[in-house]
């Protein structure tokens, strides 16, 4: 947890591009994104709706629905390219090595089957030889460690409360002891007190199970509670990556600055919230150069002409005073795609 970038990434996304062809052109949902997930790290992928974050999450297990298509790049898991694997092999990885948790547990649980049957199916998919009592014992253990009474196994999804369903869904994903959890807005359907319990649960899973988490969300409060590192997406591109505290306390990209300053914080008395003009662009014909330039308060002459590369910042932020400058080495792993920070055209 100390170093923002772990020595050995468990998952490496390289130059990933995903497109959805539609009637009036092609939606470039994800373009040239490179990102690493460290071992036992929690990485928060944040952005507004339509920025491509969910599509990116789905692509890791090759679950992007047609007509969406991965048009380029690699996703390396323990050195092997998930995108080049035969279907049979990726299916074996799904749920066993890499698992997903979604927003709405009701759409992930089968309403017609009791919970025990859903566990049996998942376990036997990967280990056909497991007997029923063995499988149920494993299911009970996972449920217990997630704070669900084992007797819930014999109930149907509709008999469980919202928070309980979310835990059961997570338990189903974790019963094969995966090492990566991709969680897409896992708490959106939950009330705030239940959400707080879920946050504690995710944090303890990381510790106890050495689970690496890719948390995909628009909820900055949630990210701040869980993530070690944060990656910010805008209009299909990665615009900033850094340790959570750096990104929240010294956001570099004008979009990140806008995003962080427009969220109400209950611990602070705010007179006014910062606001961002405009709205996210159309991804069929995105703006030229930096995609944020039409909304950017610090736009420069170069911005509409050339796209800034995602690179380490060479000069400190113009809004940052010398006293607040980063301590030695504190910006390790910091990357930003903005012409303000000295990147060479």
């Amino acid at each position, binding site marked *: 947890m100390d170093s923002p970038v772990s020595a050995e990434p468990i998952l490496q996304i390289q130059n990933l591009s995903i497109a959805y062809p539609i009637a009036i052109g092609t939606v470039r949902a994800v373009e040239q994104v490179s990102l690493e997930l460290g071992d036992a790290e929690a990485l928060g992928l944040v952005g507004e709706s339509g920025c491509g974050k969910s599509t990116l999450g789905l692509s890791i297990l090759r679950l992007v629905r047609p007509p969406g298509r991965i048009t380029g790049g690699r996703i390396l898991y323990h050195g092997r390219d998930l995108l080049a694997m035969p279907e049979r092999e990726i299916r074996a990885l799904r749920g066993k090595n890499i698992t997903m948790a979604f927003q709405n547990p009701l759409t992930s649980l089968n309403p017609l089957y009791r919970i025990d049957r859903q566990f049996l199916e998942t376990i036997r998919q990967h280990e056909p030889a497991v007997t029923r009592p063995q499988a149920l014992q494993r299911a009970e253990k996972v449920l217990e460690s997630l704070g669900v009474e084992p007797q819930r196994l014999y109930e149907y999804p509709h008999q469980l409360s919202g928070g309980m369903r979310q835990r059961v869904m997570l338990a189903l994903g974790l019963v094969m002891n995966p090492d990566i959890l991709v969680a897409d807005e896992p708490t959106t359907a939950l009330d705030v007190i239940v959400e707080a319990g879920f946050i504690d649960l995710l944090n303890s899973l990381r510790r106890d199970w050495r689970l690496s988490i890719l948390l995909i969300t628009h909820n900055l409060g949630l990210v701040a509670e869980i993530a070690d590192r944060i990656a910010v997406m805008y209009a299909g591109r990665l615009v900033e990556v850094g340790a959570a505290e750096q990104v929240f306390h010294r956001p570099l990209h004008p979009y990140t600055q806008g*995003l962080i300053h427009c969220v109400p914080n209950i611990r602070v008395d705010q007179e006014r919230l910062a606001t961002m003009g405009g709205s996210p662009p159309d991804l069929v014909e995105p703006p030229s150069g930096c995609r944020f330039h039409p909304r950017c308060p610090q736009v420069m002459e170069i911005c509409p002409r050339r796209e800034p590369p995602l690179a380490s910042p060479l000069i400190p932020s113009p809004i940052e005073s010398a006293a607040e400058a980063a301590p030695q080495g504190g910006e390790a792993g910091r990357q930003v795609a903005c012409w303000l920070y000295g990147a060479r055209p």
Partner: protein
Amino acid sequence: MSAMFRVRSLSKLFPVERSFVDLLLAGSRRSFVHAVDEVSFDIHEGEVLGLAGESGSGKSTTGRLILRLVEPSSGSIEYRGRDLKNIPRREMERLRARLQIVFQDPNSSLSPRMSVGQAIGHPLAVHRLGDARERRERVLELMEKIGLTPASFLYRKYPHQLSGGQCQRVVLARALITNPEFIVADEPIAMADVSVRALILELMLRLKEEFRLTYLFITHDLATAKYLCSRVAIMYLGRIVELAERRELFSRPHHPYTKALLAAVPIPDPAQRRQHEVVRGEIPSAIHPPPGCHFHPRCPYAMPRCREGRPPLRELAPGHFSACLLD
């Protein structure tokens, strides 16, 4: 400050739908959801009163009751000294121009077949205010004020051609076109993107000054309530458990439920990360709510007498009410 609304012992029971089998087994006993259970509060002229709570706490039903979109089971709502019950239908219809509501999801509250101009001008047509040309002018003028620009261009657009933020502005404009004095805003930003939320909140504050509005702001997000509201009422299972002026409530919360809610709000700052003191369990069923104080099964301070009888909402400090036996 004078009270625009005086709500007293307001209740709403919804009968629970039963199947034929239930009828056979349970006989003729009917069960009810106590959506709103004897709530009393005032809404002062010019304030933003927040109604906050988790899903199922009755906050949205309370908002609808005040506008008589749902008829109360019992209790009274006084609007400027008159009981809403006694206002005849005709007059109530006219009154609706002055009392408006904005819903959570702009997409489902806008007709996909009505253009922006038609949608915003629709209330004028319903209330037969002005002729077609006057209506059009008023709509365009309001669109400018609310930031739906270029107004004459957007006037002919349809909801699917607009961004989420623009849709929410259309909904706000439609509520404002009849020049109301009171607006119930039911989670108006819950569906919006992060950057749009701040814009809508700022806009609502600006419009409040410009149009001298009074808001009832319904939300599950306490950080937003703290930002926007003058006073906040916390609801739990149909009852108000605490009500106070904003600063007072957030700096000196009394009720254990309010404290639990406040402790659970995620803080958008990694430096303030902490282990939560999580209250156990989830909000119970409103069909068979726990006896006594509804919160006692989850309350860390519960005592035996919390099970007996409803704790009264008492004034602890001027304007600060809490319903807990510990106070």
